[in-house]
């Protein structure tokens, strides 16, 4: 199993995440560290750097790491716009983009973008199919670095989401939780893949939040970030990997469940998080 690390694009101390020098410094240090990828999350109605802009900044100062959205909300962006942006980033980065796409969970993001919350599942399916065609075609945007475009991961936890991943994706991206939850979702993603008649097997990606520098600030951030879920925010905060032992157990659990790549997302922007994480994984 490969391990990736997140870029701090919405984490405290507030403001630091949005300043260029800090962000690209983080990206450079991740590239020099034991990480296979740099991941970003997406939220419109929040103090959050745009995921593709953040990855573009990271792409400019790195050569090796993959760049991955964990996830980007599909239906709040027109298919042609998202396809062109993703193709651009893939081309600029020399084919390092992996695009994780899902529905998100917040109606306010859809309202802000003028996108319809109702019917979003169908809209995402159409968008995924359209992006594939655009990447294969010659009319919209640049050609992606690789024929066929970036690897496409699809998220979500319903039967419809697993089917969507099997119909349109190159794999499945899980939304986070203990290894047992990932294992269950991964099994269902594989089952849908076989049922749909796809050749081979799906890529399986997982994610978890960590903070080794300041777990209390990290937990407070998660409570704030997930406040819209009500009591569930407390559970997300409780799942924060807040010690080297917790990180190692999570990594072992995901590896056993057949995860291909686990992206560890920072819950603070403290620059020492990266070194602490690298030490925990060593």
């Amino acid at each position, binding site marked *: 199993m490969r391990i990736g690390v997140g870029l701090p694009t919405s984490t405290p101390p507030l403001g630091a995440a949005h300043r260029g020098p800090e962000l690209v410094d983080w990206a450079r240090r991740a590239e020099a560290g034991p990480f296979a990828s740099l991941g970003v999350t997406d939220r419109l109605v929040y103090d959050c750097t745009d995921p593709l802009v953040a990855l573009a900044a990271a792409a400019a100062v790195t050569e090796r790491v993959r760049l991955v959205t964990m996830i980007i909300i599909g239906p709040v962006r027109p298919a042609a716009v998202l396809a062109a942006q993703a193709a651009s980033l893939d081309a600029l980065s020399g084919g390092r983009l992996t695009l994780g796409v899902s529905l998100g969970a917040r109606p306010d993001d859809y309202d802000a973008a003028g996108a319809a919350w109702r019917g979003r*599942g*169908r809209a995402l*399916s*159409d968008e*995924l*199919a*359209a992006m*594939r*065609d655009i990447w*294969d075609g010659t009319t919209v945007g640049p050609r992606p670095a690789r024929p*066929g475009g970036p690897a496409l991961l699809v998220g979500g936890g*319903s*039967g*419809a989401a*697993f*089917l*969507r991943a*099997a*119909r*349109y*994706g*190159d794999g499945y991206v899980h939304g986070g939780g203990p290894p047992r939850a990932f294992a269950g979702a991964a*099994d*269902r*993603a*594989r*089952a*849908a893949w*076989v*049922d*749909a*008649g*796809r*050749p*081979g*097997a799906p890529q399986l990606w997982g994610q978890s939040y960590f903070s080794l520098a300041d777990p209390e600030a990290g937990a407070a951030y998660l409570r704030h970030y997930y406040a819209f879920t*009500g*009591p*569930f925010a*407390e*559970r997300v*905060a*409780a799942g924060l990997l807040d010690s080297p032992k917790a990180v190692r157990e999570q990594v072992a659990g995901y590896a056993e469940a*057949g995860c291909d790549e686990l992206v560890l997302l920072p819950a603070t922007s403290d620059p020492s998080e990266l070194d602490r994480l690298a030490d925990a994984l060593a």
Partner: protein
Amino acid sequence: MRVGICGGGPAGLYLAVLLRRAGHEVLVRERNPPGVTYGWGVVFSDESLAELRDADYETYLQIDAALVRWSSIDIHYAGERIRSTGHGFAAIARTTLLRLLAERAAVLGADVAFSVEVPADDPLAPFAGCDLVVAADGVRSVLRSAFAGQFGTTFTPTASKYVWFGADLALPVFTFIFSPTPQGLFQVHSYPYDAHRSTFIVECSEAAWRSAGLDTMGEADSLAFCQSLFEPYLGGHRLLSNESVWRTFVTVRNRAWHCRVGDQDVVLAGDAAHTAHFSIGSGTRLALDDAIALAKAFVAAPGDRAAALAAYEGDRQPVVERFQEVATDSARYFESVSRYLGFAAEPFAFNLLTRSGRIGHLNLTARDPVLVNRVDRRFAAAGPGRLVVPAPLFTPLPLAAGCTLANRVVVASGTLDEAVDGLAGEAHAAALDAAAATGAGLVVTEEVAPTADGRVTIGSPGLWTDEHAEAWAKLAARVHEAGSKLALRLTHAGRRGATLPRGRGLDRPLPAGGWRLLAPAPLPYTARSRRPEAMGPGARDAVRAAYGDAARRAADAGVDVLVLDMADGYLLASFLSPLTNPVSDSTAAAAEGADGLEARAAYPLEVLAAVRAAWPAGRPLAVRLVCDDRLAGGLTAGDGVALARRLAGAGAGLIDVAAGHTVPEAGADYRRLFNAGLADRVRNEAGVAAVVGGHITRLDEVNTILAGGRADLCRLDPGRYQRGALP
């Protein structure tokens, strides 16, 4: 912390005990007077008793002294009594349990008051000044109802009717009774709970309940009806009523288990939080486990209510959801148990004991090796003296004279999309070798097209030339050499044809060099798919003839089993479904008064007849059938049963049960064994031999499905095997 507990049932009283031990101030308010309760005995498993022992040893000792224990289950069915051993359970009178808990709570200093009505308009009034208020007031919780929006409560009724009696005899062990009557099947779930009494639950379908007139009977008449029906098992003893009226079981679920009201936190426990069908006997166990988890959460996070409540919910919600899934499967079994009344006693008992998925063949063997040996012996048709008996999956299946499968496992060679002009090559040889090397008794190919324009993708293999047939002959020989048999899936893609290879997604039309698509109606598969032509008589004749030719070539090539594909939205499936064949397809059939399903099935049946005629009479012919579209307005499982029966009558010896994909966004939930319930229904209601696939990854699951009579062959998912990640 000051805690107010609404409800003096098992959850509320046990929580009072545990929180008092931790030094919290506790008051309990119960609406009934002391000693008044409904219901008879309650069940514990060995596991739940261990939890009690760890949580409060004194309570455990007192409960333990009052328990009745047993380790067997009696199944009365078709004049036989089958006893299964190794199931450790215990029960206690509900009144005794409540008395013991109330006494213990009082000894520890909890303020317990009875006969206190909680006002529906201000349910928090009795708990003024409490930091935490626990809604432990049962399935019809007043507190939960007051804040239903915040908890996100849902209610799901089951289809059956049940009544909760007592009996004035102690049955020796847990007892199931299946009693068919002219009005329908009545079944009993019964267990002893003290030296002289048993809980005696009677359950039946709503139809049987109405047919027997129980819907209009009063309490006394319904008691007399059941007394008389189960007289042979009661041996002169009486059934007892305690407001025992017929009910519909309702599963309660809550999205959130706690909420904030002013400066108080309200949290759910026990039946107020969740119910699970009585046939898995887990209500009291779950209630007591809730109490343990909630008390523990406050030990782990002292002084931090938000963290403790989040931990409690995080701990309990997944466990309860799992129990509810198991209970739903169990309830569904009892709703449909009539369909197994033709089973011999051994498979009937095995099916019953493995109904909820908690116990499989392996686990039951550990509990009761004697019964499982008996089940396996009957499955293998081995004589009574036989001790060395193959597990069900290793029991050969004679499909036809000269075609016996070595075992009951099917493995698909998987999608390749690598044929050139329909010609199978090296990649196919490698994939079939790998599939045969799994040891499966039957290996099945990807979609093989009867005509060039019947291909799914540009890389689909075919069987429309003699050169194709020669390639298949070589492949069949390789599979035979490996000791397996070859099933060829004969598929005309219909409106799903002419697509790119499926490596980067499904149903992506070929940008150039496509071919005309055929369908019963000119409806494209997706918004991006090309529009198919509605097939006229000429096209139908040509395709039917091509199917026959392909079947003949497959026979010459040495293919063992031919699978005629009527699933996954391909040509013949699109004739069957009202979603894709909206106007009654055959006007002739309609004119003869046939119903819509019969009319839509007319052309697929013609194709089956053509294939049957071309395919050697003694060789097995299967149909892969869409038995449920999994979409409103589409084929239902009932339609699937009717179609399976019709196809079997027309020469299909085996039905491969499939569902979904008639239209692009209709799939399954993809949970473990997600097609098994459908296959079970099709097999046992239509009386056909069935193949089932769908998230089956373990050999134990195969044994369990087979021994329970839910299918005859199982298709194992490559899943983790393929990834080489198998431990």
